[in-house]
């Protein structure tokens, strides 16, 4: 057991250690400083020349927003068209998969465009290699780059002194793809391939098992997709079982690599914030606040899993066994919890164990992670979500010391608070209203058959599904019959709102802060890098996330826990 715990400590420390230099490097890319990937220059120039975009045009927040939304609309349209016409691809479709049902295509196109990767389909039985690579894998790159580029706009805006120029979204977007995501993905997919993650174009292969039976086994170009799904906090697996599948995640070493890849860029962006605005101590405080929550959540989850299921213990079988239901024995309970917390807090959504089968409290922790959705968070958007909490915390703390509040010298006024508050309540609104709607339908249509597990656990499954969609996470408490028009459309809309409103809002805040005059720092100013502010920040995060969801958690995981 000790080695398992050492394993997860190692994952955490390595992630943070690698994130530091990566953060520095990313800032150089954002600021256009000299970096070793400058050899990409001719290629980038060619892309801009072909698309007729001027990457040096200074744009304010609205222009950047239009650029981002426009580009994403194109991605979405192309993706949904390909899915609905999948049967007509002439190549890379060895298993002859046909066209998709429109609501599933809508849900999936939204899901991949919004960096969610909620999968109401199963990769090996529904998606051609063409779809996997040129639709899903492609969207995994560009949706991640969208988030990171917007985050870079935010950094620039916070540094601005009375200038509305946030930089150029197109430029940041492309450079994020070519200079950050691509190199990292190449390194990771090579490492994974060498360690057994499959990478071929052979379709179903007939293999003879040890018992002598023959079996059709799906393969495919999994390694490239696995690497970007982790790095870009996408989470959409090549195969249905995601990273529990031995072809995606063969052994403990690849598990370490993939788990680090989940945390790497989200952590690096927190450091990048510090490097960008040259306030490392503030970044360290933010990192500390996030890590405190993260480590506590991992500890609680791992403890619960290692303790095992009390109901099984009471039966007298397998005494003092950890809870291994739905887990891969090659990873064990601790690494499964570590992954679970990593993937839910970063809005990644890939799994290396079945979250549905975790103990009630551990499942509750995963939910809480998604409610907060800013513990490191999804690439780019995680920090943006965190920024909203910071604005609210600054507003409250500022008043407590007798100053009208400011963040980095920019006054937080009614306009900023209005946007921040709306964004903050959007998340509970989406999750609770959708779950309420689903619960209402289930109560009044007992024959609807969505829930395999009745009562509290079934409720948790629906709560999880909606949280996963709203948080753009993509993992699922499986067991929910979710490939129905109702879930496809509702989740699709939730993902769209949950993705773009929390980007538009903070961008508008930054657009407004960027043009404001900077207030000088005095001894009377709020110290953002003080422990006291850290306490306010944690309280605000917990109050907004936990208090809003406490009754729901009570009826789901807590009720389940107390009835066991």
């Amino acid at each position, binding site marked *: 057991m000790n080695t398992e715990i050492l394993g997860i400590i190692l994952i955490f420390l390595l992630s943070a250690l690698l994130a530091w230099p990566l953060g520095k490097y990313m800032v150089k890319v954002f600021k256009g400083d000299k970096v070793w990937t400058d050899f990409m220059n001719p290629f980038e120039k060619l892309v801009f020349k072909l698309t007729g975009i001027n990457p040096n045009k200074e744009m304010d927040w609205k222009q950047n927003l239009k650029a981002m939304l426009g580009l994403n609309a194109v991605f979405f349209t192309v993706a949904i068209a390909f899915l609905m016409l999948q049967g007509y691809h002439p190549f890379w479709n060895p298993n002859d998969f046909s066209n998709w049902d429109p609501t599933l295509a809508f849900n999936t196109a939204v899901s991949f465009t919004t960096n969610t990767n909620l999968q109401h389909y199963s990769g090996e039985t529904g998606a051609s290699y063409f779809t996997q690579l040129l639709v899903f894998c492609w969207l995994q790159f560009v949706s991640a780059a969208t988030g990171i580029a917007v985050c870079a706009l935010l950094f620039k805006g916070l540094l601005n002194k009375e200038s509305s120029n946030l930089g150029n979204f197109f430029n940041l977007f492309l450079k994020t793809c070519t200079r950050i995501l691509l190199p990292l993905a190449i390194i990771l997919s090579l490492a994974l391939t060498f360690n057994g993650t499959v990478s071929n174009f052979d379709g179903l292969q007939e293999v003879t098992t040890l018992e002598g039976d023959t079996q059709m086994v799906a393969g495919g170009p999994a390694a490239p997709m696995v690497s970007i799904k982790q790095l870009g906090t996408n989470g959409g697996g090549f195969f249905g079982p995601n990273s529990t599948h031995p072809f995606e995640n063969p052994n403990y070493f690849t598990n370490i690599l993939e788990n680090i890849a989940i945390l790497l860029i989200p952590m690096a962006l927190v450091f990048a914030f510090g490097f960008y605005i040259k306030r490392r101590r503030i970044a360290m405080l933010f990192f500390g606040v996030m890590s405190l929550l993260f480590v506590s959540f991992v500890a609680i989850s791992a403890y619960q899993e290692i303790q095992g299921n009390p109901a099984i213990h009471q039966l007298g079988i397998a005494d003092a066994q950890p809870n291994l239901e739905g887990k891969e024995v090659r990873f064990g309970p601790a690494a499964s919890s570590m992954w679970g917390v990593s993937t839910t807090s970063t809005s990644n959504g890939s799994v290396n164990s079945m979250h549905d089968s975790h103990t009630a409290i551990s499942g509750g922790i995963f939910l809480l992670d998604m409610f907060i959705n800013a513990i490191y968070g999804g690439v780019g958007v995680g920090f943006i979500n965190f920024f909203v909490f910071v604005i*609210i915390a600054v*507003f*409250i*703390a*500022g*008043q*407590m*010391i*007798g*100053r*009208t509040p400011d963040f980095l010298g920019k006054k937080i*006024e*009614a306009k*900023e*608070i209005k946007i921040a*508050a*709306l964004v*903050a*309540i959007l998340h*509970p*609104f989406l999750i*609770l*209203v959708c*779950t*309420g*709607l689903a*619960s*209402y339908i289930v*109560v009044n249509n007992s024959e609807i058959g969505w829930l395999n597990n009745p*009562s*509290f656990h*079934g*409720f948790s499954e629906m709560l999880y599904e909606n949280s996963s969609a709203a948080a753009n996470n993509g993992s699922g408490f499986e067991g929910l019959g979710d490939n129905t028009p109702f879930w496809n459309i509702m989740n699709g809309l939730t993902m769209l709102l949950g993705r773009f409103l929390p980007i538009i809002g903070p961008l508008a805040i930054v657009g407004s802060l960027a043009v404001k*005059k*900077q*207030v*000088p720092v*005095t*001894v*009377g*100013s*709020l*110290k953002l890098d*003080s422990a*006291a502010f850290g306490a*306010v920040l944690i*309280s605000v995060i917990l*109050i*907004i996330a936990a*208090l*809003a969801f*406490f*009754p*729901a958690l*009570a*009826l789901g995981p*807590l*009720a389940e826990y*107390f*009835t066991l």
Partner: protein
Amino acid sequence: MDTNNKKLFSGALLSVALKESVIKLNPKVMIKNPVMFSVEIGSVIMLVVTILSAFMKNDSLGDFGYNVVISFILILTVIFANFAEAIAEARGKAQADTLRKTRKDTIAKKLQDIKNPIDNSRFTEISSSELKKGDLYVCEPGDIIPADGKIVEGLASIDEAAITGESAPVIREAETDKDSVIGGTKVLSDKIVVEVTANPGSSFLDKMIGLVEGANRQKTPNEVALTILLSSFTLIFLIVTVTLQPFASLANTPISIAALISLFVCLIPTTIGGLLSAIGIAGMDRALRANIIAKSGKAVETAGDIDTLLLDKTGTITIGNREATAFVALDNDDKEEFIKYCLISSLSDKTPEGKSIVKLAKEKSNATIDKDHSSLKDAEFISFSAENRMSGVDLADGKQIRKGAWDAIKKWGSQSSESDKNFLEEKVNDISNNGGTPLALAIDHKILGVIQLEDIIKPGISERFARLRKMGVKTVMVTGDNPLTAKFIAKQAGVDDFIAEAKPEDKMQYIKDEQQLGKLVAMMGDGTNDAPGLAQADVGVAMNSGTQAAKEAANMVDLDSDPTKLIEVVEIGKQLLITRGNVTTFSIANDVAKYFAIVPALFVVAIPGMEALNIMNLGSPESAILSAVIFNAIIIPFLIPLALKGVKYRPVGASTLLTRNLLLYGLGGIIVPFIGIKAIDLLVNLFI
């Protein structure tokens, strides 16, 4: 004026406020406060449920008797919140009324011929309330001035005690910096013609009264932002409560409407929602108690953010004017003689400096000469002119005495030896370097010595500056002194910066420079030439004794004309924000305990395991919910004294202050309701 009202509220105020708090239940009034408005809606729904439950029985309607109690407490919650606002308003009004008493209707002698104010004998007597802006009226000794105005003709001594509490009469004169008169004050001598400067109902005082009374009260920017945040919290908890209904039916745990509404009301930030406007009004009221008339709530709030404070040296940092503190004769043997001539030269000098020289001379020597002394017969006194920068006496025996700026005297003292001149310069530098102002004296073109004038720094002022520094406020001394003297005094008084040989343009430039750096600047002024600076500054405080132009340009008027008021203004502003912030924190922190009271109570019947969450071990689900709602209601009146008095501001540095307030109001806000709800539950269980 009663500035020291120790009791928070008297019986009379209480009954007025109670009546007001019921009147305020009008939804049109309530909607201005979204948090309490939603409680009111909750109460109305609850009343309907109560009536229905008298005739029907089902799970969601619940028990009639219980519903009656919950409805009653919900309405009480709204009334408590209204009461908080009403009592703050009543206090403000009472304070304003004492000021308003001074402006009861009086007789105004309105001039008939406006074009010819010189002919001030023809006037009609009308009521002061009929005076309009631009009217001219006459005041004679014994008259009460009927309206605020500006003297256009004449000068008078006026007793302003009714407004400022200062008993010594002041002189007001046309075409000077002191040409404004205030309604309600009394003319003691002479006759003046005054032009009315404000229409009835729009004087500074009327504006201030509007700020503490409900009707015209505008929310300050920060208050608007906070209201938005609180409304969004309310919205979140509305969603939480509404969606809980289908959740619960899925989990087969029916919840009554009373329980859902109770949960909602307990979770939304009613404590701060109920006290928010009271806090704002109390802030204005505190300003009024300090005899400051603020023209807007925003000005008071901004005052808390001030980064730079421009303070006039005279009156603020030093006591009045310079005083003579030493006589330095060039030739020590002639010292007695020197002092005598200093005395003679200053006898007709009516400036405070001149008087202090006479006083010091009489202390330091045996000279007893006064103005009627025989030796001064037929003496010709020469008064100070800016051109010569000297004053003096030509005695009957032909002796010429001159006193003045040392370089002017040096020039005039052509009979002095070169070494004397050098010695003079040496002495002068000594005095200057030590913060004094040298004044040289010469007789018949021969320099005798130097008089040392010094500023007396107010006792305790450097502590106040240290306090400001800890708040993060930079203090800047503005003085007409030369840089050397200014620097010395600045250092001694502990100000951070100074503007020496200051002209009004310098002040203006300094304000602009600071604002360019993003700083907020406050200044105080009285003269017409201060007006642009007062308008430019983020917080401009005009002295009541100042000119109309200064008062118009400023956003606050200090009735006491006390230059140290600026410091108080900053603290009042900070106190306002801190009180708001801390009550908000307290209010939100309370939710933790309320959750632990209500959530297990909601589910424990259907899910017995939930009893584990009942960490307060409350008697029954019904009593748990009831206790939480009761706590939620009575915490409002409990905190009214805090809202009205404000949280004390301590200049201990931002981080320490935040930690302190976080422990007190954040952690306290978590712990207090646990104790409170448990105690109420014990009481409630005695009755059921």
